[in-house]
Structures are given as structure tokens and as C-alpha cells.
């Protein structure tokens, strides 16, 4: 279980950087409280606890992309990864070690968002589990996306590119607006990417739809997650092949 040593190091690298926690966990929580409070007097459509909770959760996964890209790019450039590549670690060990540490952070983000959401009125029923499954799948996709960025870009470029992803999630995920209503180029781009599907599906199940009602949306999310992962693994192996 050599990869666990590296995974544990990667986790420490993340949580020992206070900005990571501030941006990845605290900021989305503040956003959620703020937006729910602002829209308290007009709780319609997406501006309800059921609408905002999945949106802020998916928005916060943009930071998973940022952290995972930064960690990988930094290691690649600092020769730390070179050192590790001379050890008996296999490709699978590396990939596991760079994915695993982000899972507890994703779980923490989801837990915080849904805890706050439930305090403000997110419907607690069996559908909550479906929403969490969809959202968690999107979190995995964002980690995979981070691997792609971290493998392809330098330590200085990776944060910039990841920030674009965060903005994309925010705009084209339909976090703060109903993409179906906006339509046009926003709608077209939004529904080509997985983020809007993840948010829509989670909103729908929280509002009472069954899992089979949103299964197509879920497949979009799952498909993109698999693509991000395979491309991420390919890029990582390509960049570390020498």
C-alpha cells in the first residue's frame, strides 16, 4: 500500500495550506448562507435552499480542480515527482495517490453545503441520497479535470486555467441563473458541459423527481467524469513518461 503514504502526504499538503480550506470549504459555505439569506423574501425557482445547495456544492468543486491541478503541477515542476518516479511506485499508485486525498475534501464540501442547506430547508428524504450521488460523481469529474490541467500546465499556469474552470462552472453550470430560461449561447455551451446537468439533476431530485427522471442527466455527468479521468490519466502518464 505504498500509494497511501503518498496520498497521506498530498492530503497534508492541501490542509496545511490555510487558503485551500478558506477557498474550498469556507467560501462556498459563506456563499450559500449569503445567497439563501438574500433570496429569503423571494424563494422562487433556483433561489431556494433546494436550488442553491447543489449549485454551491458544484461551484465549490471548481476548487477541487484548482487544488488538484496546483498540487500536480507543483510536484511536476519541483522535481519531487521526478524523485518519486525513481521509487517502486506504479502508475496506478500515482494516480490513486493524487485522487484519494481530494475525496475527503469533496465529502466535507458536500456535507457542509447540505448541512447548511438542510438548516435553511433542503428537503430531507430518500431523494437526498440521489442528489448526493450525482453531486459526488461531479466532484470526481472535477478532480479528473484537475489532473488534466496539472499534467498539461505549469505551476504558474495551472491556477489561471483552473480559475477559468471555476468561472465556467459558475456561468455555464447555471449556478446563479436558470440556463434553460437564458438559453442562447449560454444554454448551448452549458448543456454541452456536465456541470449544468449535475446541478439540474440534483435540484430535480431534491424537488421530488425520481432517480429515473434524471437518469439521462446523470449519464452526462458520469460520462464526462469518466472522460476527465481517462484523459487525466493519459496526460499524467504521458507527461511522466520522460
Amino acid at each position, binding site marked *: 500500500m*505504498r500509494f*497511501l*503514504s*503518498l496520498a*497521506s*502526504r498530498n492530503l*497534508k*499538503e492541501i490542509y*496545511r*495550506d490555510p487558503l485551500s480550506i478558506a477557498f474550498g470549504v469556507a467560501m462556498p459555505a459563506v456563499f450559500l448562507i449569503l445567497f439563501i439569506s438574500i433570496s429569503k423574501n423571494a424563494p422562487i425557482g433556483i433561489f431556494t435552499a433546494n436550488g442553491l445547495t447543489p449549485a454551491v456544492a458544484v461551484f465549490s468543486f471548481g476548487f477541487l480542480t484548482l487544488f488538484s491541478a496546483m498540487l500536480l503541477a507543483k510536484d511536476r515542476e*519541483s*522535481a*519531487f515527482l*521526478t*524523485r*518519486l*518516479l*525513481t*521509487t*517502486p*511506485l506504479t502508475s496506478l*499508485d500515482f494516480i490513486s495517490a493524487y485522487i484519494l486525498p481530494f475525496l475527503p475534501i469533496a465529502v466535507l464540501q458536500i456535507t457542509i453545503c447540505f448541512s447548511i442547506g438542510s438548516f435553511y430547508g433542503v428537503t430531507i428524504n430518500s431523494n437526498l441520497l440521489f442528489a448526493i450521488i450525482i453531486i459526488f460523481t461531479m466532484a470526481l469529474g472535477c478532480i479528473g479535470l484537475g489532473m488534466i490541467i496539472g499534467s498539461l500546465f505549469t505551476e504558474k499556469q495551472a491556477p489561471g486555467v483552473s480559475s477559468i474552470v471555476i468561472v465556467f462552472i459558475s456561468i455555464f453550470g447555471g449556478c446563479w441563473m436558470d440556463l434553460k430560461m437564458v438559453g442562447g449561447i449560454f444554454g448551448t455551451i452549458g448543456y454541452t458541459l456536465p456541470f449544468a446537468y449535475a446541478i439540474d439533476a440534483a435540484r430535480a431530485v431534491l424537488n421530488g423527481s425520481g432517480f429515473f427522471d434524471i437518469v439521462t442527466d446523470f449519464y452526462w455527468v458520469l460520462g464526462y467524469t469518466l472522460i476527465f479521468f481517462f484523459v487525466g490519466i493519459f496526460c499524467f502518464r504521458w507527461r511522466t513518461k*520522460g
Partner: protein
Amino acid sequence: MSNHEGENEYAIKTFGLTKTFGSRKAVDEINLAVKKGDVFSLIGPNGAGKTTIIKMLSCLLKPTVGTATIMNYDIKKNYSEVKRIIDVSPQETAIACHLTAWENLILMGGVNGLKKQETEKRAKKLIKLMGLTQRANEQVQKFSGGMQRRLSIAMALISDPPVLFLDEPTLGLDPQARRAIWEQIEHLKGEKTIILTTHYLEEADALADRVAIIRQGTIIAEGTPQELKENVYGMQTMIIKGQNIITADIQGLKKIYPNITVIDGGIKIEAQELIFDEIVDYLRSEGVKIEWISMKEPSLDDVYLRLTGEGVN
């Protein structure tokens, strides 16, 4: 196991090791044999191919042509086995900045598959050996460059590898930090086979059992530092400063030692063998008042200069 007939006394053997990047040959048909327990130094200027050799030997780069064996394991066919018996301290300091020195060592033990107890035991020993005891539990991003480099070397030692690659271990360090690292390498002499790349020639002179001088990817000379000085440079130098040294004295000496140059306030004599008494007696008999004499042994710098016509740095 490899098919190459690696004799047991050799830890590393290379067979026409070549690496090409596009049309540029970074390493060209290197043939080396490094005995177990030796410190073998690769010296040469930046871009000579030293790091590329290390990268091929540590399975980070595939040779374009040729191969090598490490403890009889072929680097092309048995890279998993090779990775278990080597460790590398890369040219750049390769440490995890947010971890403590202790955690960095435990991490390297873990990724090398050591048991926790064994790792901790070795980590304690290495922390002490590298003089990091006082700051073992501090995040290493606060360490000085010298301390980080010592930790980087310790991380390469945690798995107790029989073969160790130290790529420019003292690059950019101050003389005190460099000396501290030399001491640690000297401790390891005889226990581990060490490939040490450097472009500090005095470092190779002080530490290496054997030296290979590399230029543009090829080995241009190889031997012990003493052999290289004797065989390649083969010159002794004497500098004499004094009063009343006149042209006539120099001409007289030139009959025995033709290679004499006038320097500020004196002369410099170079020859394969200089007889101290003969020179001093001659100059005194000619009325020269000698104030200062220096006999200079050739250094690897001289060897390098002779071989390449340029300084290594």
C-alpha cells in the same frame, strides 16, 4: 536477471549507453563499469550529459541505444527491480515543502515499501547523521538551502539502497553547507555505490574513487583522480618569487626545464618532474635571493583544462 555477464564486483555497467533528443545526441555510447562501494564521479560542464546518464540509469529515461545493468539488473528489462535497489537525490531539491523533515523521511520510507518501525528507526538515524535533529519537526519550507539539500540526500538514503545517485548535491550551496554534505558522502564511502555528478572539480577530487570527464555526451577521460593527474596532466608546477632573478638565470634553468614563464616578481616552472633542491641550489648559486617558493600539485581543474582547453565552470 539480466543476460549480461556482470561480474559481481561491479554495481553498475553501461553498454554503449546513448540518448538522442531529436537530432541531438545528449549521451553518446557511454561504457562505464563502477565497482561496488565506489564513489564514481561524472564531471563536466552544464549540458555535458551527466544528468541524462543519471536519468537513464534510474529508469526515468529510456536509452535510445545501448543499455546498462545495476547490480546485474538490466535497466530496460528489469526496471521494477532496478527501482527497488536505487535511490536518487535529484539536482533540484526534491522535498515536500509543507511536511516536516521527519514526515518527508517517513513518506520516502512508505513509498519504498518499508515497514513503519523500520522507517522510523532509519529516519531517526538519518536525521542525526544529517544534523537536522533540532528542526526535525519543522515544516521544511522554513529550512535554509543547505538544510533542504541535506534532507534531500537523507530522503535518498532512507530505503538503504545499495546504489545511490547524487546529481549535483552541492550545487549553489555555500562552502560550509557543501563541506557538511561532503562529510556525509564520505561516511557512505565503501557502504554504497555512489554516482556523483558535479561540476565542482574539487568535489570530485575530494570524494571520488574514480572520475569520468564528460564533454558533449562522451567520456573523454576516466580513471582515479591521481591517475588522471599523472597520466593526463602529468605536470608539476613550481612558482618562485625573489630578488635578482634576471634573464641569464632563466636561460640557465631553461636548459634543464624548458617550460619557464616569467610572472610578477618571479618565475613559474612546469615539468613532468621538478627536482626542488636542484632548482633552489642553482638559483642561489646565481645570487638570487629567494623569498617565496610554492610547489603546486596538478588538480582536476588542470586535467580538465588540458583535455578540453576550457574551464569546467
